[in-house]
């Protein structure tokens, strides 16, 4: 209410110079301070309610250039690259809105943490290669003064994908693409496989591809905390709250073929505080949807998908949460220290965990077996019936094992083609997506963050061209199918 009575220049002036501001990135946020002082003075004057005692420090700021919905690894990566690539220090004000600061259901923390370049799409391979070099030099990218260096606990043991007869040809062509992009992958026959890994039973395996470098697994929490720490030091604001509403304005325009099109622009994001009805309208220029498994709800709030089906207005964001289980077991005679992350022909996968003969793994269920994503309860029967038999077939030592624990996490599953959605929406012009990676978001986060930041700041993809991943493909029906989804 007070905002309306303040002079107009205070409210909207994102680009105008206000009295008292200086060039050069004075980090004390004079604009905010001056407006607060004016508010306080006005509230002392007679006739107004005295709001001096109202503390708004828990609320997000009233203005922010970019609002990133979702504080997981993708959201933080976009925030980091926005701050890295901005033209001068302090040019962009970024706010990250995260509903749950404990990250109890966020896909990042519950991830197995693998990174591999064995994809079929060149863009995916390039993203993974960049992420590997990002992780390798993480202490140069994410260095914060006086803070200890990050230890990602990276295991460079590689991925071993096994293919049956019918998938062998596809695997060979995939490896060719991977090698062209610069990934170091070697193909192995069943004999070579038995030679190298004597604990494998090669029955049913026609070909195997083994990543030699830049592949393995690491600690996703460390990456998340490192990004969070660095991003806070770069001046990004964090807010714990839930986005409940977008206030937008529409404009009817004509295309070159004289067809009417309604373009929407989001002006305000309403951020509701936890366990209260209080909300803060944050005025913003750009909204980034990095909400992971819940991206579709955020997109629906912006009006994406409201329209007759088959039209661009009626195309919803096809990302939904899918629950996946990870089981940890102990097997004293299991495969040794050299074990890569093995992905079986049946879709079951496992890897070593630590020095003490512990392994973790799981399997993606088929469409009919999909568990209910309403909660993160673990179904132990799934391991007994659907995972263990395949593991025991592939690695005979796993016939005797003991499950120690298990957990479940969400994939932000893109039901269209299981690949990410990156870039602006064609109709809601200032909403950018960075979601839908269906289980390989963590390993592609650095590259995707950079791509979205380039799109926001420069208007096009510069380093890695992710135009096949734009939203328009859902309307046009152009599927870019990724064959190697674990």
């Amino acid at each position, binding site marked *: 209410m007070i905002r309306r009575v303040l002079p107009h220049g205070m409210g909207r002036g994102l680009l105008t110079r206000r009295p008292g501001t200086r060039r050069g990135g004075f980090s004390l946020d004079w604009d905010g301070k001056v407006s607060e002082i004016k508010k306080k003075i006005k509230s002392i004057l007679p006739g107004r309610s005295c709001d001096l005692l109202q503390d708004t420090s828990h609320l997000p700021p009233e203005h922010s250039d970019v609002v990133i919905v979702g504080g997981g690894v993708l959201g933080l990566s976009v925030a980091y690259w926005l701050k890295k690539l901005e033209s001068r220090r302090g040019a962009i004000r970024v706010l990250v809105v995260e509903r749950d600061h404990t990250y109890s259901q966020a896909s990042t923390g519950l991830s197995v943490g693998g990174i591999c370049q064995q994809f079929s799409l060149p863009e995916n391979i390039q993203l993974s290669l960049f992420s590997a070099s990002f992780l390798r030099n993480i202490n140069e990218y994410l260095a914060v003064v006086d803070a200890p260096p990050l230890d990602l*606990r990276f295991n460079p043991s590689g991925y071993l994908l096994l293919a049956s007869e019918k998938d062998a040809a596809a695997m060979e062509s995939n490896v060719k693409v991977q090698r062209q992009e610069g990934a170091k992958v070697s193909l192995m026959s069943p004999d070579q496989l038995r030679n190298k890994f004597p604990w494998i039973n090669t029955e049913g395996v026609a070909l195997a591809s083994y990543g030699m470098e830049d592949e*393995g697994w690491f600690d996703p929490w460390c990456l998340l905390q490192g990004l969070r720490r660095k991003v806070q030091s770069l001046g990004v604001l964090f807010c714990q709250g839930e986005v409940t509403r977008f206030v937008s304005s529409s404009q009817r325009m004509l295309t070159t073929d004289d067809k009417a099109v309604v373009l929407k622009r989001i002006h305000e994001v309403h951020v509701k505080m936890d366990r209260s009805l209080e909300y803060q309208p944050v005025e913003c220029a750009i909204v980034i949807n990095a909400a992971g498994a819940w991206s579709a709800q955020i997109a629906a709030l912006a009006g994406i998908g409201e329209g007759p089906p088959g039209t661009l207005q009626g195309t919803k964001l096809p990302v939904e949460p899918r629950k996946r289980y990870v089981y940890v077991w102990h097997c004293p005679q299991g495969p040794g220290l050299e074990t890569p992350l093995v992905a079986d022909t049946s879709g079951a996968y496992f890897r070593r965990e630590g*020095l003490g003969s512990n392994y973790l793994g799981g399997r993606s269920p088929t469409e009919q077996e999909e568990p209910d994503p309403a909660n993160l309860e673990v179904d132990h029967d799934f391991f007994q019936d659907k995972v263990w038999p395949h593991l025991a077939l592939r690695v005979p030592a796993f016939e005797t094992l003991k499950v120690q624990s298990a957990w479940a996490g969400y994939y932000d599953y893109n039901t269209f083609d299981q690949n990410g959605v990156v870039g602006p929406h064609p109709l809601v012009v200032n909403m950018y997506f960075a979601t839908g990676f269906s289980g390989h978001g963590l390993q592609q986060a650095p590259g995707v963050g950079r791509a979205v930041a380039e799109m926001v700041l420069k208007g096009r993809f510069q380093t890695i061209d992710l135009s096949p991943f734009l939203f328009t493909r859902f309307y046009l029906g152009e599927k870019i199918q990724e064959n190697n989804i674990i």
Partner: protein
Amino acid sequence: MWDLVLEDRRINSLRLVAPMWNGRIRGIHRLGGAVAPEGNQKKKRTILQFLTNYFYDVEALRDYLLQREMYKVHEKNRFRDKEWIRPDKYGHFSQEFWNFCEVPVEAVDASDCDINYEGLDNLLRLKELQSLSLQRCSHVDDWCLSRLYPLADSLQELSLAGCPRVSERGLACLHHLQNLRRLDISDLPAVSNPGLTQILVEEMLPNCEVVGVDWAEGLKSGPEEQPQDTASPVPA
């Protein structure tokens, strides 16, 4: 300091030189700390090198002594043209080095070098490398170890002693090096459980002699093994 060796080499040459230095140059080494004797000598060499980088006369003295030792070593072991090639006082290699362009490099000693992930490009091209020493290289970490697989056909000896960033996760990628006969993994501070790691690495490389960690290191001595020095007589 880069030391290359061509043709047939002896590991002994390097070890012969170090103890002799110990005899000549005393007084600089007052190092405490519970380090194995081997490690102690390595630390002394570091102090000497540090001093060498700062004082020309120390450097000159060291080079002079080195020349004398090399001469003695030549006499004793009768190498035929088989010496380590080292840079001279200014860090330049002698002109004769260029005559050896075609000769394959067999051993590289990159101890205490600042070699990093990109720098390994140069080493990986040496297809006949038999011995590689990366002792106390501060930038060699797990990512670097994952790059060593191209040397699998020829590499027989690898030393990673004292590298502060190498952990058991990097050691897991050494299983590609099936021709390895000697692996030194002593004094790796980043390895969480050295005894267990030694066992797992030995299982991973059955033909290799893994040196550096005693498997009993993690075991604590029982109460009955406490020393009773005061009671025992001093041996004559």
